[in-house]
């Protein structure tokens, strides 16, 4: 296993990292006091750590390469585990039952905090599924998706402040406004390609945030809007615990609806057109698909979900200000989609759960939280570049004429 060569290699790696981290890890200067602190023990730690980790790294890379080769040779049981399990009724039914029980029992079994975090994760499931339409299906890289989220959140908050609009009325209004914004913003930019589109959408996201920040008369500026009412339930007076549980189930409902709609869209004429557009724009047009309309529909529909997510977001936090809608937010949502596995609904759900729950559970590491989060992002991508649930786009499977064309499920 451990040949001399490998040890040599690891030694070199370890030396390299000791060199690399030398100034920042070892020397701590205090330019104010004009003192230097030398922390040599750290160098030893880095060296030792790098030495050990380089073995792990090599092992993992080798394993990944081996896996790739096996896949190239093309064994039949290439279908990933989860879809395979799901297609087997023996596993599927009990699994489904267990999931349902777990989901229903969650807010009663776990603490307020757990429920609260789960609500956040569910909001990201909904919003992530929306972005999945844009990025995963239609292949349009949108780095300013958070703009529509902001539109939803602010439309509820502002309508509530000025006109006393309730949550239930704001939900469709927020969605509609986001849809409208999607069309409005999409129209001029959708002829741009790839990364140019990405940067322009990033620009739009920032524009919306900056306007919210600067235009006090409209949006109350950086001090935000407080005391946004939580969603009402027939005028009942709910305690914090109860209203959290209520929002939880509301989000479960919304998430299920989103999954339902996105699934149906994906398997429809429109959904196929989105995927085709992602695959090859020129050929797509030559097949009679209206590029602009198709792109716009993906963009606006994606925005709609962000709008809805935004309304729930405002209701859940009861306070909003522009700091919740920075580019980092767009990036996190994008990570949800890519990490989970682009284009896959299950993937987005898993991605959202991981990305939102992970930093929360990493709280135990307190100040190392975001450091570890960064490392995990890199590692996940390096070792599973296709996302966690990859290659399971459902495809039309033909099973004979006259029969219903059945789909191979996710």
């Amino acid at each position, binding site marked *: 296993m451990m040949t001399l060569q490998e040890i040599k290699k690891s030694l070199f790696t370890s030396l390299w990292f000791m060199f690399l981290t030398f100034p920042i890890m070892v020397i701590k200067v205090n330019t104010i006091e004009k003192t230097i602190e030398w922390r040599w023990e750290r160098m030893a730690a880095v060296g030792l750590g790098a030495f050990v980790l380089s073995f792990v790294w090599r092992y993992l890379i080798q394993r990944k390469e081996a896996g790739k080769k096996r896949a190239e040779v093309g064994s039949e049981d290439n279908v990933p585990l989860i879809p395979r399990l799901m297609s087997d009724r023996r596993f599927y039914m009990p699994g489904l039952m267990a999931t349902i029980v777990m989901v229903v029992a969650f807010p009663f079994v776990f603490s307020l905090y757990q429920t609260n975090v789960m609500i956040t994760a569910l909001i990201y499931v909904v919003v992530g599924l929306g972005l999945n339409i844009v990025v995963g299906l239609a292949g349009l890289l949108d780095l300013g998706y958070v703009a529509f989220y902001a539109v939803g959140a602010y439309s509820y908050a502002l309508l509530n402040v000025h006109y006393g609009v309730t949550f239930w009325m704001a939900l469709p209004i927020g969605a509609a406004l986001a849809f409208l914004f999607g069309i409005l913003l999409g129209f001029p930019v959708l002829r741009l390609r790839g990364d140019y589109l990405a940067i322009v959408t990033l620009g739009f996201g920032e524009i919306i945030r900056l306007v919210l920040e600067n235009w006090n008369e409209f949006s109350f500026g950086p001090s935000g809007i407080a005391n946004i009412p939580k969603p009402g339930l027939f005028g009942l007076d709910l305690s914090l615990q109860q209203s959290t549980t209520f929002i939880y189930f509301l989000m479960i409902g919304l998430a299920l609806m989103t999954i339902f709609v996105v699934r149906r869209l994906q398997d429809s004429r429109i959904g196929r057109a989105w995927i085709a557009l992602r695959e090859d*724009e020129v050929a797509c047009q030559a097949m009679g698909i209206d590029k602009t309309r198709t792109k716009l529909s993906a963009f606006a529909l994606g925005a709609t979900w962000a709008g809805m997510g935004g309304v729930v977001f405002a209701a859940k936090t009861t306070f909003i200000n522009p700091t919740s809608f920075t580019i980092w937010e767009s990036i996190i949502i994008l990570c949800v989609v890519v990490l989970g596995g682009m284009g896959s609904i299950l993937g987005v759900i898993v991605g959202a759960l991981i990305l939102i729950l992970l930093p929360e559970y990493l709280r135990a590491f307190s100040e190392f939280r975001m450091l570890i989060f960064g490392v995990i992002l890199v590692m996940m991508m390096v070792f599973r570049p296709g996302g966690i649930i990859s290659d399971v786009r459902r495809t039309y499977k033909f099973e004979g004429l006259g029969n219903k064309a059945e789909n191979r499920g996710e």
Partner: protein
Amino acid sequence: MDYFLELFLGGLTRGSIYALIALGYTMVYGIIELINFAHGEIYMIGAFTGLIVISVLTLLGWNTVAVIVIAALVAMIYSAAYGYTIEKIAYKPLRGSQRLSALISAIGMSLFLQNYVLLAQTSNFLPYPNLIPEFTFVKPIEHIVRSTEIVIYIATALVMVGLTVLIKFTRMGKAMRAVAQDRDMAMLVGVDVNRVISFTFIIGSSIAALGGVLVASHIGQVNYYVGFIAGIKAFVAAVLGGIGSMPGAVLGSLVLGWTESFFTGYISSDYEDVFAFIFLVLILIFRPAGILGRSQTDKV
């Protein structure tokens, strides 16, 4: 007229700073089509390394121009090493996967590096000594432009000339262009693609480090987060100029710098960034591949 000139020079300063970062962005993008989100962090690490070197040398009793030169050189070497290592760890294993995966990896790297410096050094802002000498010839126009700014202009110009020479006239430059155009083809004709990519990261990172040291000297402070904002702006500048094109990156940066400066000067800095982004959108609507980018039509 004085006011105009002042805004013009202010814009030039901003533009030159963006350019030093944008060049690295655009080079990396040109070669592997990756938005290297961690590039801003490389710039920040460069600034920090420079600060550490300056402090150590100052404490040893040095106090000459040599200090800043050595600091800049060490910062460039270290940033290059970081760039090289990051590419090997976070991007190389992802070659051939979807481009978005590499983007997420870059974002993860960016988060990691920010927090690495935050934890290993400090969350506080640190003062950055300005060791760039005051040139006597600047004295009469000191209220308009400072020596540091002049050094930034000169550095940017030199870097640009140097890069142009490198790309146009050296073997490595030729190889870089070949890889940028068609990686597989370049590999077939015997270009060592891995080496070219590493080299690109090294050059891009060391330019960013130079920028880091100069900018930090100019604004007099540094913390772990300075890279992110500057990085985003520089990326916008690179796209504005036409990503992948080096003269484009410089031109885009200058245009962005002037846009911001004049907008602030004549209208309002409240909406400075809003305007910068709207300007970007407008330019891209009329020139979908940026100012100097060649619009690529699909070969059908």
